């Protein structure tokens, strides 16, 4: 019983800030979007902030969708190649991809900013998504290679003997079999791209292109007028709720990412 009392107290401590933020986002405050009582005034206020919530939300969704799709395609094809084929340079390429983990994120964003300028992707959501795909690659590739290796070879060999090309065997037979791995990789890619603040801060310079985190942080950095804290917590909720829901629904797949040892760089 003492165990449950102290653990519950701890759980409340961890959950309190989230609950407080949700409550503050709908609570009335004189001089804010929600002048009194409870309601979604702070949210409507936030919807009109800067370029408008629809713009920021669309940017965030676009970047996340492109990152998830890109990571899945590159890591599924690559994982298949590393699990089932041998070709010159294979081990070198795999090690180079894993080395991305060794190099601190923040230190190559400055050259990436310059490089994306060279290839016409500066201040572009596509460029930002490509950078996210690169940062996801070590984890995703490692996860997918292990997923493909766990499939019995006989399954694929039967298809190949029946005259399927390797791509038919891949798309019809192997891909459905590695679905759990794909879900884990996709989930990690979504959470990373949806939440990241530093990469868009550096790679984007046009307010109309900002994803949610950069846009909401800019609410705290207004040069005139007081900071609207209620609106700020509404912004926090808009960012956090999709992640909380996804985590609660896909908890199993999330934990698999930890179990895989892929974090072990």
């Amino acid at each position, binding site marked *: 019983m003492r165990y449950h009392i102290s653990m519950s107290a701890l759980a409340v401590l961890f959950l309190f800030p989230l609950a407080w933020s949700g409550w503050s986002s709908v609570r009335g405050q004189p001089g804010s979007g929600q002048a009194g009582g409870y309601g979604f005034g702070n949210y409507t206020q936030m919807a009109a902030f800067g370029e408008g919530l629809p713009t920021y939300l669309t940017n965030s969704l676009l970047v996340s969708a492109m990152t998830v799709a890109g990571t899945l395609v590159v890591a599924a094809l690559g994982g298949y*190649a590393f699990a089932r*084929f041998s070709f010159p340079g*294979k081990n070198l390429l795999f090690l180079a*991809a894993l080395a991305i983990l060794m190099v601190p994120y923040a*230190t190559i964003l400055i050259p990436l900013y310059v490089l994306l300028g060279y290839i016409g992707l500066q201040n572009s959501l596509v460029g930002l998504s490509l950078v996210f795909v690169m940062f996801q690659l070590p984890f995703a*590739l490692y996860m997918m290679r292990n997923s493909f290796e766990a499939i019995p070879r006989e399954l694929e060999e039967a298809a190949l003997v029946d005259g399927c090309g390797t791509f038919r065997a891949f798309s019809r037979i192997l891909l459905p079999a590695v679905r759990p791995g794909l879900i884990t990789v996709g989930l990690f890619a979504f959470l990373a791209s949806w939440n990241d603040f530093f990469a868009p801060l550096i790679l984007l310079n046009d307010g109309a292109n900002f994803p949610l985190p950069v846009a909401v942080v800019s609410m705290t950095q207004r040069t005139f007028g007081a900071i609207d804290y209620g609106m700020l917590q509404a912004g926090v909720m808009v960012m956090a709720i999709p992640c909380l829901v996804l985590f*609660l629904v896909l908890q199993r797949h999330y934990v698999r990412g*930890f179990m895989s040892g892929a974090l072990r760089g």
Partner: protein
Amino acid sequence: MTGIAPARPVRDPQAVAGRAGHTARRSRQLAGMLYAAPTALIVVVLFVVPLVLVVWMSLNRWPVLGAPTFNAPANYAKVSQDPLFLDSVLFTLKYTAIITVLLSLLALGLALAVQERRPGVAFYRAAFFLPGAVGFAAAALLFYGLLNNDFGPFGFLGVNWIGTPNMALTSTIMLVLWRFAGFNMLILLTGLQAIPVEVYEAARSDGATRMQIFTKITLPLLRPTIALMLILSITGSLLAFDQFFIFTNGGPDNSTVSMVMVIYRNAFFRFDLGGAAALSVVLLVALVALNALQMRVLRGGRA
């Protein structure tokens, strides 16, 4: 690279002896290269090229607009004379030391408390982890409101949460502990659950006390996992940016400026990309060396 097994040799189903087998193998090699081509493209263009570029940039005067001019080693000379950077190194090291100790102890405590399957444990685990599902930027903004004395619930305490250097650091540490304790707990749990139950049973039947079981069995067998957690925590803390940029904004009086913040300021406030690149190279070399060292310790723990 510990923990990553080298790729198993592939048993090629079409590798039959003879010329037909040879061409079949060639075409299979080609297919493999084709599947790996997107990976290669991303790794080369977005990782290898920037690595080379950052070194080249650090050897040039590189304004945001206009042509770069070679000026080595001026950018590196500046690094050693930049008082803000030197202060930020000390501050970041101090922050890293404090966070790593507190976070590890908290995560270990939580992991031990929820390692056994019993009623309620699934809820506790989810509760401890839930802050980790929220993005770090969102978490920093949450605390920005939570610890504001006019808006947040703790105004009655009369504490100036981000007004003095010590309190700003303390508040940031609370934010980071809240956000990352569950994450580290989950890492440790995977290690705890890999310890066979039989080991514990054998120890118990030999009359070992709980303390003995913890120090003689749990801790040694958990060593590789603890090492992993330390690596992630140390590297993450040395690269701290979001918490200090969003939550304390480097203040008060530049007392909470981290190394990565100096890189950012050099690049986008002083428009000195060459100087920012030189700082990046210094940080990169230091961290890769540190990682390599930690890997060796980790590997030693496994042997």
